């Protein structure tokens, strides 16, 4: 991208409202057109016409008509970050223990991974989150829309409807907090129907790794065009990864996907939830070869939050394996006809 430079005559320089001494100094130094300022840094200009750095910067900003730093990374101060973080509304799972472990729920601007063996309920969790995302802000939801990326064909509409209906029933059972909010409460409850929930969830069936790559590239435009989208669920990320690729090729694909997803999460401040499967890993320790189950995709894939789902002593458990902000912990939850719930 190039700056759009405008051709100024000396008269125009005058019309910029620069002080007389400055104007004089510029003229004396031979500055006539805007092109003469090309490549000039504030320090250089300051030296050349003997003014302060601050004044030189001001001049350059005026002449170049744009803030030169628009192409550069803009830092954000920690206070603003904190304000943004406390304002973040989590997407709840409906299991109070699981939500607490996640810091309230699944967070925007981050990638949260749920991994586990087939049948443990990853898709169930994905579907519940897609519905939770649509709950109005008035009821502590995000009031947003969700995109569900199905790579395995495990998405079943009837089950999604079941979960959506239960969430609608949950909202309908809520009591108004006070008299003032009663009107709005009733109105929003009336609007939160099964049809409205379903209309806020978009599904895409990914059939192979190429399509997966393509949809991730296209998601940027889709989300930019629809700012209501607050959650993307990728169920599951490793399914289409080919097993015969060498580690280098695999690594490149994983890095590209990871970069894509990170960029989406941060640029649009949305929550990205990724389901992952387990794969067998051979390790030799003390001369004995053992196989263990580890999350697929290896070390190149490192989400902000990794939660391992498993079955222990008759209940489903979720273990926070690693997180950029949450401590390690383990909780129980359950899956029933309503969706995900606490024990």
């Amino acid at each position: 991208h190039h700056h759009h430079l405008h051709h100024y005559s000396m008269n125009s320089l005058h019309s910029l409202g620069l002080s007389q001494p400055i104007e004089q100094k510029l003229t004396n130094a031979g500055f006539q057109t805007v092109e003469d300022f090309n490549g000039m840094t504030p320090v250089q200009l300051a030296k050349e016409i003997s003014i302060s750095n601050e004044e030189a910067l001001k001049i350059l900003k005026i002449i170049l008509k744009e803030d030169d730093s628009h192409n550069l990374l803009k830092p954000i101060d920690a206070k603003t970050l904190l304000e943004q973080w406390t304002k973040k509304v989590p997407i709840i799972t409906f299991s109070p223990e699981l939500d607490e472990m996640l810091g309230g729920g699944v967070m925007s601007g981050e990638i949260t991974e749920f991994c586990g063996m087939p049948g443990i309920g990853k898709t169930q969790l994905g579907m519940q989150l897609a519905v939770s995302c649509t709950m109005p802000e008035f009821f502590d939801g995000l009031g947003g829309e969700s995109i569900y990326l199905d790579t395995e064909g495990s998405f079943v509409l009837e089950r999604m409807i079941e979960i959506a209906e239960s969430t609608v029933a949950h909202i309908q059972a809520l009591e108004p907090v006070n008299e003032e909010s009663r009107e709005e409460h009733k109105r929003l409850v009336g609007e939160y129907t099964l049809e409205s929930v379903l209309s806020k969830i978009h599904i895409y069936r990914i059939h192979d790794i190429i399509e997966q790559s393509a949809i991730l590239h296209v998601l940027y435009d889709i989300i930019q065009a629809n700012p209501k989208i607050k959650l993307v669920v990728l169920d599951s990320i490793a399914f289409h990864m080919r097993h015969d690729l060498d580690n280098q090729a695999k690594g490149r694909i994983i890095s590209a996907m990871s970069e894509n997803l990170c960029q989406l999460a941060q640029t649009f401040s949305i929550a990205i939830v990724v389901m992952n499967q387990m794969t067998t890993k051979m390790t030799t320790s003390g001369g004995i070869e053992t196989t263990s189950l580890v999350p697929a995709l290896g070390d190149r894939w490192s989400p902000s939050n990794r939660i391992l789902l498993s079955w222990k002593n008759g209940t489903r458990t979720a273990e926070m394996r690693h997180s950029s902000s949450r401590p390690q912990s383990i909780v129980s939850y359950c899956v029933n006809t309503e969706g995900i719930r606490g024990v």
Partner: protein
Amino acid sequence: MSKGQVSTRKLVKAGLSDEIIQKLVQHKLTDYADILSLTTFELYTKLQVDIFTVREIIKKVSHATVSPLQNLNTLWEIQKNKDYEYLPTTLSTLDQYLMGGIPAASVTELVSQSGMGKTQFCLMLSLLATLPKSLKGLDGSVIYYDTEGSFNVERLVQIARTKFSDYYQSEEHRNQSISRIQIVRTTKSSEIVASLEKLEGVIIENNVKLIILDSVGSMARNEFSSENFIERSNVLVKLASLLKSHSERFRIPVMVTNQVMEKMDPFSKKSHITPALGPVWAHSVNNRLILETSYGNKRKITIAKSPISPVVSFPYHIREDGIAVGDPDVPQSDVEVELNPDNYWNQQIFAQSV
């Protein structure tokens, strides 16, 4: 267009400029998959254009590759007007938990040790698929891949005669049903893959409503030794992908049978029975049903993986007319359903003592 000339239709459709298309053709990148399987850097090096143009190309090709997202409300409207999205099995408890029967548009795996009734289950389903809608069938044909030579015509006819005695009184009905079941005998995965790749025409012409593969477990284990783990994984993934593709495109159920293997816990040194083919295959199927032993000589079916059913087990037995739910010694109305049996979660199947 002369023979041997490369088609640029797809590239033109993606909205790429002639100049870019020329460069892509030069490097034999004429399909979207060719382009998207390369990294940004690889494309940049090959095409000798600037990085912004490379990103543009990837964007345009990606847009051309994907179809629009589907909104669930619209999908619901479409599916409301459709026919059966499942094959009722006549096993009432099973149909109840699966919300109708063996689901269409997904791959269902049936796992068990030998002698538990897998093939009979498949024979029964084959018959059911050919029955008219008035009898809760799918009024269509069946493609039955038989890798062990276990398809038994006599048993099929016996089930037909006893289970639907009225309907199959008529010889015409009998012949129609049986001629609709196409058996493909093979032991090689490559042959099955080749057959599946070309199956669309067959499915359309013959109104195929059910595909069965009996058994993927024995075929894979006979064909690949334990060293060829990667090769085996690739074939299994390819098979699952083709089966899913047909099941989704034509909205028909697909049933695949699998056997069991012994797995040893490295810590306790105890071994247990678990479905064969490992986690790669386990992730590939959408639904998993297990036929296993229960107390004494009794048997039970476990719905071990299903997006719509919890993990449940209930008794079954084999009789003249095929598989039936319940304990033969207990009245039909008392089918005992067990919720969330622990053993499944340890990947363990109840086995007959050896």
